[in-house]
C-alpha cells in the first residue's frame, strides 16, 4: 500500500477516538462548559465498552455501555459545575482522577480477556475506489457512524432549535432565562451528551481499534481532544479534519519505520500542538472571539 494511503487510512482509524471525544467536547464548550475530564470519560467509556462486550459477547452492547459510562462521568461534572458552581478546571481534573481510579479498580478483571470486537466492514463499491477506498471505506462501523455524526452534530448545533438553545446557553445565557428556558438544564444536557461522545471515543479505542483493555490505555487522547476543540475553533467540521491530522501524525512514524526510514516521532507528535499555538497566535483575538462568550468567562475567571 502506498505511504499516502497507509498514513491517511491509519490517521482515520487512529484519529477516530480523538474525534468522538473532541466532537463531544465541542458540544459542551458551545454551551459554555469546558471539561478536562474528557480523558476520564474516554477511560470509563473504554472500560465500560470492553467489559460489557466481554460479558454479553456483543460489541454493540459494548458501544452503548461506553456511551452511557462516559455520559455518567460527565454527568457528575455537569452537576458540580452547573448546580454547585464548582471550578470547571478543578472538577474536570478531579473526575479524571476518579476515572483513573475506578477503571483501575474494576478493570483489572478484564485485562487480557478476549473480546468479540467490532470487525472491519468494507463498504461495497466505495471501498474499491482508488486511493479513497482504502483511506475512507475499509474500516469498522463506528468509523462510518462518525462520518454521519459529524455533519449531524453540525446540523443540530447550527440549524435546529436545540442547537440554538445550546449555543445561546454558551453565548448569552441571560436571554434564555428571559425567554423561560433554564440555561442550567441546557448546559447540563450538553455536557452529558458531550461525555457520551467521549465514551464512544473510548469504546472505539478498546473494542474497535486496539481490541484490548489496559489500565490508562487512553494515554492522553482526551487531553488532545480538548486541545483539538480550540484548534478547530469550536466547529464540528474542523474537529474532523483536526482529529485526522492528529491521527496521521501518529500513523506517520510507524509507516516510515516499516519502510526502513525514520523521522523523529516526537517532532511529529508535537506538530499538532505547535500548529494550534501558532494558529492561536496568528489569529489571536479573532480565534478567541469565536469562542462562546460564557466559555471566555470561564477562562478569564477560572480561579
Amino acid at each position: 500500500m502506498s505511504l499516502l494511503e497507509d498514513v491517511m487510512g491509519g490517521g482515520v482509524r487512529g484519529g477516530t477516538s480523538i474525534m468522538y471525544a473532541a466532537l463531544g467536547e465541542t458540544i459542551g464548550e458551545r454551551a459554555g462548559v469546558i471539561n478536562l475530564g474528557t480523558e476520564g470519560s474516554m477511560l470509563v467509556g473504554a472500560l465500560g465498552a470492553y467489559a460489557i462486550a466481554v460479558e454479553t459477547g456483543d460489541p454493540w452492547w459494548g458501544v452503548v455501555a461506553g456511551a452511557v459510562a462516559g455520559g455518567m462521568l460527565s454527568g457528575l461534572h455537569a452537576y458540580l459545575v452547573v448546580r454547585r458552581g464548582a471550578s470547571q478546571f478543578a472538577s474536570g481534573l478531579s473526575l479524571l482522577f476518579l476515572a483513573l481510579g475506578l477503571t483501575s479498580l474494576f478493570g483489572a478483571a478484564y485485562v487480557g480477556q478476549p473480546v468479540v470486537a467490532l470487525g472491519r466492514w468494507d463498504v461495497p463499491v466505495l471501498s474499491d475506489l482508488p486511493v479513497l477506498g482504502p483511506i475512507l471505506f475499509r474500516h469498522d462501523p463506528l468509523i462510518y457512524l462518525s462520518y454521519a455524526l459529524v455533519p449531524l452534530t453540525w446540523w443540530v448545533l447550527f440549524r435546529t432549535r436545540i442547537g440554538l438553545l445550546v449555543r445561546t446557553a454558551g453565548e448569552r445565557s441571560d436571554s434564555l432565562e428571559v425567554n423561560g428556558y433554564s440555561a442550567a438544564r441546557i448546559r447540563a444536557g450538553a455536557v452529558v451528551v458531550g461525555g457520551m461522545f467521549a465514551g464512544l471515543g473510548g469504546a472505539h479505542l478498546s473494542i474497535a481499534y486496539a481490541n484490548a483493555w489496559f489500565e490508562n490505555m487512553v494515554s492522553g487522547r482526551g487531553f488532545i481532544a480538548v486541545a483539538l476543540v480550540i484548534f478547530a475553533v469550536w466547529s464540528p467540521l474542523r474537529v474532523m479534519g483536526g482529529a485526522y491530522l492528529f491521527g496521521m501524525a501518529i500513523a506517520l512514524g510507524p509507516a516510515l519505520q516499516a519502510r526502513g526510514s525514520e523521522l523523529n516521532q516526537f517532532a511529529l507528535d508535537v506538530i499538532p500542538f505547535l500548529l494550534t499555538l501558532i494558529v492561536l497566535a496568528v489569529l489571536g483575538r479573532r480565534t478567541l472571539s469565536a469562542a462562546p462568550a460564557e466559555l471566555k468567562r470561564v477562562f478569564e475567571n477560572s480561579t
Partner: protein
Amino acid sequence: MTATMAAPESDLATAPPRWRGPLLVVSRWVLALAGALVIFSALLLAKGANPVDAMLAMVSSTFTQQRSVEQIFIQMSPLVLGALAVAVPARAGLTNVGGEGQIIIGAVAACGTFLLLGESIGGPVLVLLMLVASALAGAAWAGLAAGLRLLAGVNEAISTLLLNFVALDVLLFLIYQPWRESPTGQPTTLELADSAKLPVLAGTSVHVGIVLAVVLVVVVHLVLNHTRWGFRVSVAGGNSEAARRSGMKVPILLCSALLIGGALAGLAGMIHFAGVEYKLRPGFGSQLGYTSFLACWLARHRPFPILLAAFTFAALSVGSDSLQLDSGVPAASINVLTALILLAVLGFTASRKKASA
C-alpha cells in the same frame, strides 16, 4: 441557580463573604469527607476487600513508619511549589494549567545545566546554578503563554495546557536522543553526580526541597499580602478596569504573576529531579502538575493551606502502596479516594465564589 449566572464582576466587588458560623462550615467539611470515605468503602467492599481493615492498615502503615512519614514530606515538596505556581497567577485572575509542562522544563534545565557544567564544577555552586536555571526555564516556559496573552490575546488557560504537551515532547526527544545515557539502554539521562544531588536533612532521607518549599510558602504569602506588587496584582486580577483607571500597567502585572508562577513550577521540577529521581525518564513528573493544580484549588489558592493540601495528597499517595500490599486492591484505586475527597469538597463545602467558573 441564579448564582451560576452572576456576572463576573459582581462576585468579588459586591457580595460580602457569607459567613455562616464556623460550626456549619466545619460540619459541612466533615460530612463531605465522611461521604467520600463511605463511597470509597463501598467500592472496596465491592472488590472483596474489608474497607475498615484496608483503611486502618493504610493509616498505620503511612503514619507509624518513619520511612513513610519521610516519604510524605519528600512527595509533598514539589506539590507545594507546583501549587504555589498556580496560586500566584490566580491572584492576578489567571489560570495556570501548565504546571505539568513547567515542571518538566524546570527539570530539563536543571539536567542540562548538570550535563553542561557537571564536569567542571560541583557541589553547592552547581546545585545553585541548577536551581536558578530551573526557575528561569520554568518562567520562560510560562513566559511563552504570557507573551501569547500580551501580544495576541491568547488565553493563558489554553496556551499553558497546550504547552504541557510540547514540554513532554521536548523531554522525550532529549532523553531518547541527545541526552540518552547509552543508545542501547533505557531512555534515560546520565544519573546526577552525588555532588549535584540535593542534600538530605540530617538523619533522614528527606531532601532539603521541603525547606525550600516551606520558605517559599512564607515568601509568597508575604509578597501577595504585604507588598505593593501583591496588592496591585490582586486589584488587577479582581477588577482590571479599575486598576487601569488608577494607572496600573495591568498587562505587565499579569505577566509578572504568570512568570513567577512558572519559576515556582520550574523549581518544583528541579527538586523532584535532583532530590528524588536523579535521572530524567519518560514518565518524569507525570501528573505532578495536575495534582498541584488540585492541591492549590483545595487550598483555595492561599499559600499556608497549600501546605496542608499538599501534605494530604502526598499522604494519600504514600498510602496507596498499603492498599495494594495489605488489601490486595490495585494501587491506583487511591485515585478514587483522592477524587472523591476533591469532589466532596467541590460540591458540598461552601464555595465563597459561585460564578459558573
